[in-house]
């Protein structure tokens, strides 16, 4: 092989390997700083303490409030996105004409492409004021409004991936159900959704992972109070919002407070990584079955 060819191949291989270096970089950075952190704070305290107050005089380092805040906003998002996304998917896959699909899908893509800081603006300055007229006791910062907006953000993802899954179900199954005299409703609910179930689950898990990692909406509209509550009407703080809060302040490099963003980041990374992996596995198995 000529030298030039070899050089090109070497460069291309380097490009391919770069993604591996990125992953190694992320894990190394998170682990390195987290280990520094765990030298001062025992792991069990991090996992069991019910308070998170690294920026106060009396410091507590329990991840629970941040985790609960994250799960609360994520749960609200899923409650919004799952039914709407699934119904949209059924509509697009079973009912919509090609022309309607041709219009709806790109518009859904726009919804997915809106920057999250813009969604944050909507959550804080549009959805919260509107909700305050309906829901008594809803505070200016709360989990409900960013949760709902986050649900709208992940809706296109649930819809599009679920539709792919429904589409992947063999036509013969659909034909068989129709031949037995089923209505569209019965085919969709009793044949297509059960057949596409693991594919749909994979899409929902991926959407959950996206919601957990979502930052700007919650940083803008959910507040900055790490409290252990499941009340969606009061301010909470998510893991991502905490990381933003610390990096906006002047936390000196190398301090324990600085290290907290890495330990929270590590928790976030681990959580989303596991969910992505599960989703990926489910999806692969699903598409293998019908391939």
């Amino acid at each position, binding site marked *: 092989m000529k030298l030039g060819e070899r050089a090109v191949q070497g460069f*291309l291989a380097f490009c391919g*390997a770069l993604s591996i270096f990125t992953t190694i970089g992320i894990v190394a950075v998170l682990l390195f700083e987290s280990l520094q952190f765990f030298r001062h704070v025992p792991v069990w305290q991090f996992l069991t303490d019910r308070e998170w107050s690294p920026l106060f005089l009396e410091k507590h380092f329990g991840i629970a409030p941040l985790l609960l805040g994250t799960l609360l906003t994520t749960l609200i998002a899923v409650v919004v996105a799952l039914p*709407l996304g699934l119904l949209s998917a059924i509509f697009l896959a*079973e009912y919509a004409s090609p022309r309607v699909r041709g219009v709806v899908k790109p518009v859904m893509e726009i919804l997915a*492409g809106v920057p999250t800081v813009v969604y*944050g603006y909507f959550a804080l300055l549009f959805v919260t004021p509107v909700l305050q007229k309906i829901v008594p006791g809803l505070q200016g910062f709360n989990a409900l409004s960013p949760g709902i907006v986050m649900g709208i953000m992940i809706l296109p993802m649930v819809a599009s991936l679920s539709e792919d899954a429904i589409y992947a179900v063999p036509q013969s199954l659909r034909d068989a159900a129709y031949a037995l005299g089923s209505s569209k409703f019965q085919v969709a609910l009793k044949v297509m959704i059960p057949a596409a179930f693991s594919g749909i689950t994979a899409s929902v898990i*991926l959407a959950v992972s996206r919601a957990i990692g979502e*930052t700007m909406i919650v940083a803008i509209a959910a507040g900055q109070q790490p409290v252990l509550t499941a009340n969606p009407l009061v301010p909470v703080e998510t893991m991502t919002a905490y990381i933003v809060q610390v990096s906006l302040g002047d936390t000196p490099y190398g301090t324990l407070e600085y290290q907290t*963003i890495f330990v929270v980041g590590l928790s976030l990374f681990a959580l989303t990584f596991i969910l992505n992996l599960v989703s990926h596995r489910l999806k692969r198995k699903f598409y293998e079955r019908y391939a």
Partner: protein
Amino acid sequence: MRIPDAALGRLIASQHRRERWFRVLAASAVVFALLVLVVFLADVFADGVPRLNWQFLTSFPSRKPEQAGILAALAGSVYLVILTAALAVPLGIGAAVYLEEYARDNFFTRLIEVNIANLAGVPSIIYGILGLELFVRFMVLERSLIAGALTMALLILPIVILASREALRAVPKSLREASYALGATRWQTTRHHVLPLALPGMLTGIILALSRAIGETAPLIMLGALTYVAFLPTGLKSPFTALPIQIFNWVSRPQAEFAINAAAGIVVLLIILLSMNAIAIWLRNKYQRKYQW
């Protein structure tokens, strides 16, 4: 067993009713999603468009909302996206070419593939943490334009790779075989035959990836781009701000006048993103028709 005609009729009628309701329900889910988009856009345009004027586009940030503008943020975003593209596009296409045209199906290749899929799902704020430690601290690039661009490049790299691979896969095998049969090397085949045909498809994906980079906020906050920047970037190591950062800054302030500035900033951001999307779709349609096999 024989069902009486009347009962059967009722059964079928109730089936039909349910069928109609379900169709309406499914359609209304889609309508709701589209309606939300329309309401959001109408709200932000109603608030933001009256504030849009030449002064707003050509002024630096200010403590007085009516004197503030997005010049520094706009310039920062433009520089940032150009630098990000310069870094991510060659690397991303390189990786895609490697995986599609060169790599054998071995452990290393599969590792890269799984890894890219995983990286695409890592929250953007984690990339910010990586950038903060690796580029800002370790490589001592400070809170500079180049640190921001490097971070953004890593962030969009998986998207660029995935889109480029898809475009490469769309080029038929027969073309490559014809080239090899004439004695061309692998790189000659790739460069002269495969890449030119795949480029339009790649371009579409790349534009979409770059529009993601323009809208990203969290990684830049991590790098410390949220500072009062009243000057244009002067070089790679210059401090900077960007459009979404400026919007975030204004949204976070309690005064209603700043919220209006944020809305106006969002209008500008959305117009930029929509035009990029339009270009991407136009490119896709144009070349889809031209080459068909």
